[in-house]
């Protein structure tokens, strides 16, 4: 069983490497002067991924390989795009990716004893609120939101780390209690964090927190009435902020018609739309587009760059890859051995899923745009490390669930996928060495 899955994973890993190699080979010629060092960069990236994969196999043999491969591919795609846009940012992104991998392994190890995180729940909550309050005074503004903090010359985005804390705090609070009265401290925490984020004009992060909170709350308590009430409160809050804040009104207006305000507030969305339209089905080709005309092309708007240079079909493949990531994450939650693990795994998956939906939906004009990063692909250290921490949580839970979980997963896959069913007639065969 292990051998079979391992063999398949190796094939997929090879595909990732082939993509990285071909992309960086092309990137050698993407600018006027050839950049042979691109191949070196690609090589380092391949080695780094290979190393991380081997460590994962040793540290957690039951970790979810498909999930890991999806994360590797998305991160590699991010690095390819960053290198295409600027080799310096790509180098920094590579360092952040390494730091992210380290974070992932640390989280994975800590998740072996969930008690640690449960014990840390209250301190994390206090620290989160403390940082967010401090941001109001010492925060640096960027892109309309005052959500950056500078420590020793390095810029951090604390809301990214608050997201990870939120996953633990929600899971901890709702592992033992499901009655509303017992959950008041958690409600307070979520409420305060949201208000602070809105005050910093970090609407994207606020939306993510509330959304993930609602999903985990509903999953844990099955309390439809309270969930609907919370949604209503959120709707009233959204309505109020629409009328209170000009920038929220502007967001909605440019969502409805970015062309009307092309020269001012609609510029970014309109540029993104033109970039996507220019790519068409197959894309203009790596290095052939003009993505730098889009503001935030390497961070929030990286999906438009993908559409422009790689085309709609590839972009859909990216969406499917994110879906795979979320589905694997939720399957990990479903197979978790204890309630805390289940809720953390679900919270982490929900966060990643929401974040992906909100930013891609914003870029393609399905929903109003809020400035958040696209997990693993966007440039940004805080985002990369926070997302990798979430993956660490998922892999930790998956690893703990052990061989029994593997068996369950396989049974589900055989139900879902007929082609696999033919190779594995039924779950009892899993022990056979295929």
């Amino acid at each position, binding site marked *: 069983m292990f051998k079979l899955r391992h063999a398949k994973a190796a094939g997929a890993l090879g595909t990732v490497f082939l993509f990285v190699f071909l992309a960086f080979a092309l990137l050698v010629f993407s600018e006027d002067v050839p950049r042979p060092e691109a191949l070196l960069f690609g090589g380092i990236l391949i080695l780094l991924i290979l190393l991380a994969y081997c460590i994962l196999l040793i540290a957690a043999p039951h970790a979810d390989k498909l999930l890991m491969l999806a994360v590797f591919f998305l991160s590699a795609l991010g690095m390819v795009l960053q290198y295409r846009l600027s080799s310096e940012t790509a180098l920094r992104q590579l360092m952040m990716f390494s730091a992210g991998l380290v974070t992932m392994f640390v989280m994975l190890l800590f998740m072996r004893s969930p008690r640690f995180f449960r014990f840390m729940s209250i301190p994390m909550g206090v620290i989160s609120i403390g940082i967010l309050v401090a941001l109001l005074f010492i925060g640096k503004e960027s892109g309309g939101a005052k959500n950056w903090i500078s420590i020793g010359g390095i810029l951090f985005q604390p809301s990214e780390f608050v997201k990870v804390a939120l996953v633990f705090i929600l899971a901890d609070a709702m592992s033992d209690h499901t009655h509303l009265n017992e959950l008041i401290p958690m409600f307070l925490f979520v409420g305060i964090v949201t208000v602070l984020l809105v005050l910093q004009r970090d609407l994207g992060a606020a939306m993510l927190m509330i959304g993930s909170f609602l*999903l985990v709350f*509903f*999953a*844990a308590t*099955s309390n439809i009435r309270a969930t609907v009430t919370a949604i209503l409160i959120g709707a009233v809050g959204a309505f109020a902020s629409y009328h209170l804040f000009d920038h929220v009104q502007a967001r909605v207006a440019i969502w409805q018609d970015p*062309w009307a305000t*092309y020269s001012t507030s609609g510029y970014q969305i*309109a*540029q993104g*739309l*033109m*970039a*996507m*339209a*220019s790519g*068409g089905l197959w894309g*203009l080709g790596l290095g052939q*587009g*003009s993505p730098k*005309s889009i503001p935030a092309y390497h961070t929030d708007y990286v999906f438009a760059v993908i*559409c422009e240079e790689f085309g*709609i079909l590839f*972009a*859909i493949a990216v*969406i*499917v890859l*994110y*879906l795979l990531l*979320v*589905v694997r994450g*939720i*399957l990990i*939650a*479903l197979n978790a051995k204890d*309630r805390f693990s*289940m*809720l953390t795994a*679900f919270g982490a998956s*929900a966060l990643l*899923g929401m974040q*992906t*939906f909100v930013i*891609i*939906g914003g870029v*393609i*004009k*399905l929903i109003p745009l809020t400035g958040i990063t696209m997990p693993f692909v966007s440039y940004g250290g805080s985002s990369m490390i926070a997302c990798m921490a979430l993956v660490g949580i998922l892999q930790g839970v998956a690893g703990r669930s052990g061989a029994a979980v593997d068996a369950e997963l396989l049974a589900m896959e055989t139900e879902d996928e007929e082609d696999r069913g033919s190779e594995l007639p039924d779950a009892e065969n899993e022990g056979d060495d295929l």
Partner: protein
Amino acid sequence: MNTRRNIKGMLVVFIALFLLLAVYLVYIIGAYGAYWFSSPYNTRVRERQNTVLAGDIYDRNGIILAYTDDDGSRFYSADRDVRLATAHVIGDNTGQTLGAEALFSKYLLGFEQDIGARLAQLLENKQQKGADITLTVDAALCAYARSLLGDKSGAVFVMNYKTGEVLINTSSPEFDPQRMTDYASGNYNLADGSMVNRATMGRYTPGSVFKIVTAVAALRHIPGVEERSFHCDGALVFDKKSGTLVEGMDPYDGDGNVNAEYAVLSDHDQSVHGTLTLQEAFIHSCNHVFAELALEVGKDNMKKTAESLGFNGEYLFDELVAYCGMYDPGETDFNLAWSGVGQDTDIVTPVQMTLLAAAAANDGIAMQPKLLKSVHGTENTSYRTVQPEEYQTLLKGNEAAFLKRSMLGVVESGTGKKAAVEGLSVAGKTGTAEISSSGEILPHAWFTGFIDSDAHPYAITVIVERGGGGGTVAAPIAGEILAACCKK
């Protein structure tokens, strides 16, 4: 366990959300991509012009309309009449208009070229050249149609109602695509709105050509309306304050002027048509009957019918940027009655009227207007040819049949007699759109119609701004253009 069940539910929600992302991405790029790409703001197109030689543009008969010389300068037809008559449909290469230059820049500038063609050009060390394209328009016919408009503003639009190919699209006043830099620098002043393609984007009061819509509404919502007889005794009278219909009241004072308390709806020439059927009312363009029909159909159904015919919506054609009309029945009877005869706040575009006439001619089916006949590869192979495509079934069979009969009647014995062409069965509807209440400004003259023939399946709309009566000014122009189209 409930939590597990809930999480499974969320799994389904996430799968649905991500599918929505993928589907919406495909939809929005499919529906709007071409427009966004050809947007004047898209710097990619302008940047390409510096590195790629744009391809040539030909008309359907192979007459060259635009080409690039070896220095990269863009030239348009040397024949001034042709150049001006096709200016709007060809557009310009500075991104100021939405013609073929902008819409098909992905071909002209080689965005769509496959890697083989690019490599071949690279190996031969030639500058990259985009693909040549052939349009569906006939340049000579455009110039002829333009000449018939004379010094009046207006537009002519002709399309093949079986294939959707646009044969004529000309608009007056025009600009000279060869002088775009002069316009931009302000060295040469252009009349306002000269760069607007009036055939596709000109928003006009329709006048009586709108009766096509009211007739369809009546057929749809009044059972047995074709068998009924109507009585036209001149003006319909409304209370001026409330706008409600007042029956059996003589609105005129001793001198023949309308009393201050009343407002009337009458025909342009105050004619009284007596007793007539729906078809006769259509043929003689009786305002009285059509106003009554609008009142009987009612606000909601009038609006519903108009919207089913493309009003208040958005045209998303693949190869043409076009606006649709607006219809609002208003608040009072007075508004509703006038809206039923194409006045009040009614707005249409020539392309929309052509689509309605085309649907009447083609069993209710409107073909999607097509402008691109073919794209030529580097080895002179055309790799993309026009494919007729249904746009929408606008009319039911009986509605199309009624309109065809009635529109033939208009040219045979009604208001559109001057559109008749020897040997062709021309059908149509005239319109005389009042644009000022004082009558100081001449009305817009409309004719929209088609030739009922499999050999010459052309639908046409002619609008002459401030031209006068539709039957006297627009109908004869339409007749001459249709005759010219069939000689080809």
